[in-house]
């Protein structure tokens, strides 16, 4: 699934060359601007990789009325600009498409980053109809994604200028992580998260909305939502988990978090809450079944940093909805609750 379209500006999004005539700037190509608006409406981020001064990106925002999620202006290789967008947004190459009118630029990006979908502007209208540009579910959170990344830029600039520790910045920003039991209104977003999250996803398997609905009413399960906001903006529902609570060993069958929430106290807060809630419910340990794949290494780092340990002797039994044939091996990450665990950070409001 494509999460971000990266635009060249001159003769691609613009009808001409920005620097050619300072007193007569080019307009926006109407057909391509329409594609931009359509894809943004589907929750696909829009970014810029342009050999122009940064003012050109500002101008593109004014022309299209769109806040770009990441802007890379400069005269280096286009592949370097595309890589900078990936770093900026926390995406991997097969999640982005790049559109440029210059065949040389397209070839350079295709050679350096073979997993990026490279398009000529004339292919754009067709490509927008391809399945990889059509996410199955589009929620309010997804549609607001571009704005959320723009808020993130402001937050990041303030964080860079901030003198204190990371935790102090979370407090200064008024970070609020709210953990709650899921209800029916959360169904669409919960269904969307497993499709959209990779780096913090314990199963890597899509989950049908019907499955979540059944889990809501199952006595042996809790479906948990995590919401995030701070003074810069409201990110809405950024993560969640499904916990089997039937016995004294709580089993986390699915744990997922948007990479947008990285570095904002969410995953650590959720893991601390899990330990606290399990302990209060009389459980002796928490087990997170986590598939071992290339993409979710960040989740495994978060788990082990929080004190969870992979236990080879513990079966990581997963229900059918959380399994797939090509999923690879699953490890059980366990934490005992007999010893004190990290306190719940003060920015977390527990369920």
């Amino acid at each position, binding site marked *: 699934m494509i999460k971000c379209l990266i635009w060249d500006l001159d003769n691609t999004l613009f009808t001409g060359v920005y620097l050619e005539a300072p007193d007569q700037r080019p307009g926006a190509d109407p057909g391509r601007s329409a594609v931009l608006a359509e894809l943004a409406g589907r929750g696909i981020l829009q970014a810029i990789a342009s050999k122009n001064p940064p003012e050109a990106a500002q101008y593109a925002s004014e022309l299209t009325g769109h806040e770009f999620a990441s802007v890379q202006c400069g005269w280096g290789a286009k592949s370097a600009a595309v890589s900078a967008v990936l770093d900026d947004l926390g995406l991997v190459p097969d999640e982005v498409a790049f559109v440029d009118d210059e065949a040389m630029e397209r070839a350079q990006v295709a050679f350096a980053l073979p997993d990026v979908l490279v398009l000529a502007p004339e292919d754009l209208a067709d490509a927008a109809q391809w399945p990889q540009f059509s996410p199955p579910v589009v929620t309010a959170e997804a549609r607001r994604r571009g704005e959320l990344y723009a808020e993130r830029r402001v937050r990041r600039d303030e964080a860079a200028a901030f003198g204190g520790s990371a935790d102090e910045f979370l407090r200064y920003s008024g970070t609020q992580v709210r953990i709650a039991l899921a209800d029916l209104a959360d169904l669409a977003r919960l269904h969307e998260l497993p499709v959209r999250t990779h780096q913090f996803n314990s199963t890597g398997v899509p989950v049908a909305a019907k499955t979540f609905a059944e889990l809501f009413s199952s006595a042996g399960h809790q479906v948990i939502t995590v919401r995030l906001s701070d003074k810069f903006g409201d990110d809405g529902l950024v993560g969640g988990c499904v916990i089997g609570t039937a016995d004294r060993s709580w089993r986390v069958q699915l744990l997922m978090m948007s990479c947008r929430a*990285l570095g904002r106290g969410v995953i650590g807060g959720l893991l601390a809450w899990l330990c606290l809630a399990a302990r209060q419910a009389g459980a002796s340990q928490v087990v997170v079944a986590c598939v071992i794949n*290339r993409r979710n*290494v*960040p*989740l495994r*780092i978060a788990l082990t*940093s929080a004190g969870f340990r992979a236990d080879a002797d513990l079966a990581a039994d997963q229900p059918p909805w959380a399994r797939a044939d090509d999923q690879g091996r699953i490890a059980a990450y366990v934490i005992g609750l007999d010893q004190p665990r990290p306190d719940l950070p003060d920015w977390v409001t527990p369920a």
Partner: protein
Amino acid sequence: MSAATSGPEVLAELARILAELTGDSAVLDAPPGTPLLRDGIGLNSVGGALLLVRVQARFGVDVADEDLNLDSLATIGTLAAFVADRMTGR
């Protein structure tokens, strides 16, 4: 990759990868006991994952697959030792 690559060579190469990842050349002089995450080099979980991708490309050792608990990510030295050990073991 030569199986003769020694621990100190891995350590020096690892420091170069880290300097590239963080954009901070001071990392080149960091002692082996420097933690990789948080208070040390300051990698976050995504940074740690990126480091392991680079390590696999450079040394052919898939740390993420072989070290389920990622204990090797404790310090620059533990990661270098893990990589050097796997390289001589093949």
